[in-house]
């Protein structure tokens, strides 16, 4: 493989992985801290992308759309937690699966009612519209590099928030012992509401960031949800570190899986199986370490 093409694919893989991390980290945090399995997580990615499209059109500015979209998602998350999710903490996983599956149907129809079923695209903001030339014919878009940087900054911020702030300490305490934390005078209900709201806002934000590089289409939420499940299973449920490692791994495997076609030319089987490759990887991890790469040991 040509080193420049290799570099481009490497950057693409890392960027895809980092984006997956944003979505998957919300999923894994909501499960790890609150014990809630949120099937509707992908819907927020989809809603984020549609929000970016519609707000950019309304406000005429991608950055304003990004900011207001994020605020809207946090508010939506708090509202949903208050309306539905808080009733599920003491219930079986099944009721959580049931309720959040119902939410998927509702959000997908609401999207269809509000925005229709068309595929849209969002223009890259003018500030980042350029690309960096690598050779005379190859160039790499600035927006994708900026996207990767934002994801890394958010990941670092998340790490700092959870490990080194008072709020993070409360969240960790709430995850390990809900009753004890509450009896120490911490409002665990509010804490959970915040975790849920920020978890889904991360997914929505990822959708908004992805809007200019991929198209905005109805099925995008379900597709990302499934991949995020794989990320979470490989990384270990509740582990943010694991989500990062697994997301990068999957980003790279998926991206390079699709370009092997270039490599071997006539041998057409491999790229067609690229869609399967991440699931094969998950099967291997399940065989080798059922608890995931960074998960707590089972039994």
């Amino acid at each position: 493989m040509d080193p420049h093409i290799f570099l481009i694919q490497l950057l693409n893989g890392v960027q895809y992985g980092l984006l997956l991390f944003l979505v998957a980290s919300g999923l894994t945090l909501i499960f790890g801290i609150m014990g809630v399995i949120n099937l509707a997580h992908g819907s927020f990615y989809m809603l984020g992308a549609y929000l970016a499209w519609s707000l950019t059109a309304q406000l005429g500015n991608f950055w304003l759309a990004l900011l207001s979209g994020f605020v809207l998602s946090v508010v939506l998350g708090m509202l949903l937690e208050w309306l539905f999710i808080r009733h599920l903490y003491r219930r079986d996983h099944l009721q959580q699966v049931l309720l959040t599956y119902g939410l998927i149907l509702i959000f997908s129809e609401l999207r269809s009612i509000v925005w229709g079923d068309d595929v849209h695209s969002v223009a890259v903001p003018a500030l980042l519209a350029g690309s960096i030339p690598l050779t005379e014919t190859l160039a790499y878009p600035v927006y994708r590099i900026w996207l990767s940087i934002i994801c890394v900054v958010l990941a670092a911020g998340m790490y700092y928030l959870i490990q080194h702030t008072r709020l993070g300490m409360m969240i960790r305490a709430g995850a390990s012992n809900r009753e004890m934390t509450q009896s120490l005078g911490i409002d665990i209900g509010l804490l959970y509401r915040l975790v849920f709201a920020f978890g889904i806002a991360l997914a929505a934000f990822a959708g908004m960031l992805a809007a200019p590089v991929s198209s905005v289409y109805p099925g995008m939420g379900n597709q990302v949800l499934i991949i995020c499940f794989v990320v979470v299973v490989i990384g270990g449920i509740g582990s943010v570190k694991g989500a990062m490692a697994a997301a990068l791994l999957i980003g790279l495997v998926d991206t390079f899986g699709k370009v092997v076609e270039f490599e071997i030319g006539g041998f057409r089987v491999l790229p067609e199986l690229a869609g399967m490759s991440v699931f094969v990887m998950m099967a291997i991890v399940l065989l080798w370490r059922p608890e995931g790469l960074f998960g707590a040991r089972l039994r």
Partner: protein
Amino acid sequence: MSTRVRSIALLVGLALLLVFPLVGDRFYVQFFSKILIMTIFAGSLNLLVGYTGLISLGHAAFFGIAGYILALYSPDTAAAGLLTSLLLSVGGAALLALLIGSLVVRTGGIFFIMATLAFAEMLFYLFHDTAIAGGSDGIYIYQRPTLMIAGWQPLDLANIVHFYYLVLFFSLAAIVSIHTLLRSPFGKVIVGIRVNEQRMRALGFHTYRYKLVCFVIAGALAGLAGYLAASQFGVVNPEMLGWHLSGSVLMMVILGGMGTLVGPVLGAFSLMMLEEGFQSITKHWQLLTGAVIVLVALYLPRGFAGLLPKRTGNKTLPPRSKGGTGSSAAVDRPYV
């Protein structure tokens, strides 16, 4: 409800189902065949979700693979033999369940949900992205399977009334065999695993094997349903393996009331009839379905079966014991 009223209700329901195709409209005979197929599918999943405590979100894999086996086995110009094709399809689904089960049963709780989903998706992409069986468009079954015994043709699946009775027979047979299975010592063990797996292990049961066998039985039954669905519609496509189908059959089980024999039947009938009704009201019918599902999750934790009056002197399934499932350390968080 006394046992007597209950048996009368069951008999009346059965009688209605038996005479229905003689009087019913063609459309509804086909619609009810479809519902009955879903009761088999939901019943098989209930064996895992309701009785063994394994929440599978990838059960459509076995449903779909059986359909694909029928489609690939059927010759283009002649009808496939019913017995051979049925055996192949159900056997194939059971084999796939053994393969996937031996991996996923190692995990538990939430891992199980995600792992089953991911394996089903793997299969979905295999059929969607490659040209094995028509890719994303799927593959047609030009002639429905028939049963031929020495030139005599007692059953032709292309005949919708024949088909209806065949499906009714299989759906009753499935319910009876699940009932028998649950009353057997094997059934007691799997219910024991749901309640407290650690205790069953301490009692000396090799729980992995029991769960795996249960997974294979459920897979084979789902294969039966998939075979019937493929012969009804005459077309098989990757959606048959997709997670939407896995999700809606899980919804049927939970809506109806898991861990009860009538639950999946109730769930399949109510969800499919609700959807049919909503579709006639609005284009955005999924909004209404979603709302019903959310309301049931919030207010009817035992599903529609919870609305039925309890059988007098009935033993209901014991609840899952808290914190003792031993399925996964990550899931049994200390405050649960």
